[in-house]
């Protein structure tokens, strides 16, 4: 059994977790181009080596960030997303498109 350290729940079986993909900056959907949005939605660094990813402890629906090595299959560090994301993201109403 492989264990992962959840910042909220401590050491748990890795089967209790869901992999959520790479931590990448989200472009502003109201302002970015279609190409930038496609890149954000679909493209992956998919690195062989150290990666920084979102993981979720499924049972408690708690999302956090894990750094791990995809070649050695080692989890280096897990921490609360608050260490990276300091500010609240506001979901404001998009500006109306400018008249052409």
């Amino acid at each position: 059994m492989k264990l992962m350290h959840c910042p909220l729940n401590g050491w748990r079986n890795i089967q209790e977790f869901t992999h959520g993909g790479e931590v990448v900056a989200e472009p502003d959907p109201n302002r970015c181009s279609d190409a930038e949005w496609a890149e954000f939605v679909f493209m992956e660094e998919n690195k062989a080596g150290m990666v920084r990813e979102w993981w979720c402890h499924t049972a408690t629906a708690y999302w956090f960030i894990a750094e791990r090595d995809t070649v050695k299959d080692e989890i280096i560090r897990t921490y609360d997303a608050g260490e990276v994301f300091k500010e609240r993201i506001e979901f404001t109403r998009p500006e109306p498109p400018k008249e052409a």
Partner: protein
Amino acid sequence: MPFGLIKYALSSGHPAKRFLLARPELKPSYDVVIIGGGGHGLATAYHLARYHGIRNVAVFEKGYIGGGNTGRNTAIIRSNYLTPEGVAFYEESVSLYRQLSRELDYNILYSERGHFTLAHTDSAMRTSRWRAEVNKHLGVDSELVYRDDLARLIPELNLSEEAAYPILGALYHPPGAVARHDAVAWGYAGRAAELGVEIHQDTTVTDIEVTDGRVSGVVTDRGRVACGKAVQAVAGASSEIARMAGVKLPIRTIPLQACVSQPHKPSLDAIIVSGSLHVYISQSDRGEFVMGGSTDPYPRYQTSSSLDFIEGLMSHVLELLPHLSEVQVMRQWAGMTDMTPDFAPIMGETGVENYYIDAGWGTWGFKATPVCGKRMAEMLATGRVPALIAPFRLSRFENFDLVGEKGAASVGH
């Protein structure tokens, strides 16, 4: 036969001629460089040499030919997909596979068994009917079968309604087949080498040179070669190789595990797949039960096996085929798959001129080997993308024009 063997032993003709040259010297330049000596790369090399007269070709393989996913899959061949693009593509592959032993003069042990995709829910029955109708419309032999048909066609199948996930019916695809996967790689490699293709095993590509948006050379651990065109066919390492050419891919590298049992007398004709239970099982010509499941739960560049996988898989296998409970598992292994967001491959142009890609083959690459080789070679030779593979272009992602092939192996519906 015994006399042939004795004559051979006494003759001066042995050791037999090598199938492939050990490791030829690198030439300074090739018309086409193929990165990856798996089934797809070797089939492309063969088709270039045989049908397009392009013989100044080098195949670079980091390990040995067919040692990656070509030798790690569960060797199932079928064309009962859900999208018209998928069906047309795999139907051509099946028709090429059927005569491949003759084409290569090398027995790939192609064996048609009948392929059953079990349905355990009403929605799976609905999808099976949908797939059957798409298939029939496109001329592929598929039909929906019910419990009484299954009792007749696969007598050993557990059709009990007491099972955790009772079987309601199945999508039956009679041409579904298995083949010897190593032989496919060796057959293509042998014939391609006879035609002048250089196959460089134990040769790692370390960089790809791009000049003015066009590929100009490939750097290996044995030196640099110039090339007119290059193509990568390196399942598992697609993102890392594409990065060398400055191309970003929508791929996650996720291990897929499989296992075989001890050999037994032939007892299971059919290939049985359950998308809901994430199981597929068939019996090889050597008598081993070949079993696979779903991909691992998270991406890794690694081929280790896990107890979690085998426990989960066996609980489902034994629900379908309880009489296998005394059978011992003999070997377990994993391959690294390229998983794409729409469960469809990526083939064709990359945005770097003369640099082509064959990737994103996830859990369904082996069955596409011949058609991939044929169409990739056609594209390299003519410079035009064949209509059959155009839907799988890399640019579909930036245009939000995905294929959505839910007929991929072990995908629940």
